[in-house]
């Protein structure tokens, strides 16, 4: 077997090792690369910026611990933006693991950075099972769907929820989604009831949401870590109080994560280019049983 063929049939564990090293290096030696703003993230930011203080935004934690490194910075940025603008936030989760840890931890963490009162400035309704069936009912009665909040308090006793009986009283929905749940919000809530929706998706899910963005069924899109890092930059530029928070050395930010993403993307690009060079070199020999024609 020639060298080119041998390299083409490289043990995939070598590739895994390269990706592993590419992840570790920026983790140990941060680079701090700057990010530029893209239109989908800017329109999401401007949408929240256009809401006057006192508006109500639903932040739906539709993701679990698996995609938290991507979705957490998005959720934190959106929450910080809302709280900095004195926008009231109703948190909930349509993904089972979102309600238990993600929503509780992220909301508590970000809310502690601002002088806020639970029940007045923000609430956490917790997780609701039933997926699309539950979403369809939210436009009728949120109180019936969530009789108690994530901490077991009756929702009817929370002052904020006195003003929010259904999605009709909500100005914007931000779904931070691990997969298809952002699409449910677009198809069931935006298309049928007209409530504006912004989606924070994982990088894998982002291409699909462009179709909805272009159709104006999504007001904005935060795609993966990159989207979150752009949002962080816009927030820091506009709100000095938030910029101060992001300067904290103990805080994990998407902007830091972009260092890792940069190196891993470069590793993958290098692998693809190398694979093609080797492919063209080995083309002079007959192909050997590759099923992926």
């Amino acid at each position, binding site marked *: 077997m020639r060298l080119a063929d041998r390299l083409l049939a490289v043990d995939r564990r070598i590739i895994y090792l390269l990706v592993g090293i590419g992840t570790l290096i920026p983790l140990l030696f941060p680079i701090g690369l700057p990010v530029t703003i893209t239109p989908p993230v800017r329109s999401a930011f401007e949408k929240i910026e256009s809401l006057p203080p*006192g508006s*109500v935004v639903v932040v739906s934690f539709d993701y679990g611990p698996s995609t938290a490194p991507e979705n957490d910075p998005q959720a934190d940025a959106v929450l910080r933006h809302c709280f900095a603008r004195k926008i009231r936030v109703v948190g909930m989760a349509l993904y089972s693991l979102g309600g238990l840890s993600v929503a509780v931890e992220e909301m508590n963490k970000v809310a502690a950075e601002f002088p806020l009162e639970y029940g007045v400035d923000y609430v956490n309704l917790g997780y609701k099972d039933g*997926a699309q069936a539950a979403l369809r009912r939210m436009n009728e009665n949120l109180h019936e769907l969530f009789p108690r909040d994530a901490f077991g308090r009756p929702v009817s006793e929370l002052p904020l929820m006195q003003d929010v009986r259904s999605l009709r009283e909500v100005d914007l929905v931000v779904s931070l989604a*691990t997969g298809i749940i952002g699409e449910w919000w677009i198809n069931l809530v935006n298309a049928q009831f007209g409530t504006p929706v912004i989606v924070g998706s994982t990088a894998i899910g982002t291409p699909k949401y462009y179709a909805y963005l272009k159709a104006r069924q999504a007001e904005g899109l935060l795609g993966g870590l990159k989207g979150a890092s752009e949002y962080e930059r816009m927030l820091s530029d506009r709100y000095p109080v938030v910029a101060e928070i992001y300067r904290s050395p103990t805080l994990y930010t998407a902007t830091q994560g972009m260092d890792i993403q940069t190196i891993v993307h470069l590793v993958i690009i290098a692998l693809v280019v190398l694979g093609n060079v080797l492919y063209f070199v080995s083309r002079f020999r007959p192909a050997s049983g590759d099923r992926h024609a």
Partner: protein
Amino acid sequence: MGVRPACPAHSHNRRGRFRPAAAVLGLLLSFVSTAAAQEVATPSANPPLPAPVGLTAVDQPWDAGGAILLTWQPPAAISGGDGAYRIERGPSSEGPFSEIGSLPAGTARFVDREAFGGAAFVYRVTFEPASGGVSTPAFAGPIAARPNGFRTDRVNALVLVLLLTGLVLFFIWRARSGARLFVRRISGLNAIDEAIGRATEMGRKILYVPGIQSMDEIQTIAALAILGYVGKLSATYGAELDVPNRDPLTFAAARETVKHAYLEAGRPDLFREEIVNYVTYDQFAFTAAVTGRMVRERPAANFFIGSFYAESLILSEMGQTTGAIQIAGTAEVMQLPFFVATCDYTLIGEELYAASAYLSHEPVLLGSIKGQDMMKAVLLIVGVIGVVLATMGFPIVSELLTMH
């Protein structure tokens, strides 16, 4: 009934929700203006302001009842000034009235979403300028909210639903009458027989994952239809089948499907309940369990058919390393690239739904595919016309197709 919060619905009256801010601002302004006014005159000396003009109250159309839409115009004398509208509701023009909302100046629309019970209400709207005083009230009503039987704003969607239903039923009828319908060959489906045959020859099992979604996902139903075919063929050849499940409802249905497939193949003796098994409700724990089975038991054929998410690549890449023939099928656009990159054949989008009809070769099912294709042709033509018209500055088609 006490004072209830404002329940404005749309962008026009959303500003009504910032009552705390508006109230604080109003208080501050009134304090400043009152302090200034005290030097020249007392506030009670202000003449009464004119009422809001043209107040109307109508039943909110196309809804399930319980909502009354109020519209008005600002009193001419104070247009553009700061202040707030007070919206009140009572059983008659004599009252008693209770406040149901307060909106800042500049708004001219309010939806009372709590006009339930079929009772008639009278609405009273007054304007309170920030500088003090109150306008004379405007009245509207009595009016009762009524449920509507049909949403006229969704006629366009109904027409499309009826058109699709009509086309599908027409082609089913044509197929039943003996007309020969051509449906193109789907290579992924032809590979199913080959994959099962190979597994039988090698004496290794066939792994079939019917997606990770529940029965309310139509892809799951399509996956079970194909599972029926795979189950029947496996039973016929005597190949070992393994169907792990993430969703409990899908699990119950998959077990029935496979049991019936074995019965149809004339081999009910080969059916064991463990063939269709439940693993866990958690997506990644499920993925770990299935990839573990792939590594330990090395199935010769892997089927990933149905609705998949982030686990798609983990499952199919692992299958690649074990050297299994892999056939995938999903309508999840995000996962298609992964399946295409790692599987031997992939049923893309609508092919998944057409698969069961194609496999059965039943004319009735093939007719439905034909009807669906015709609908697609109709939409294509309408789409092209819409694009041309919109480019020329007449967005009539997009307006007609927008569902409210």
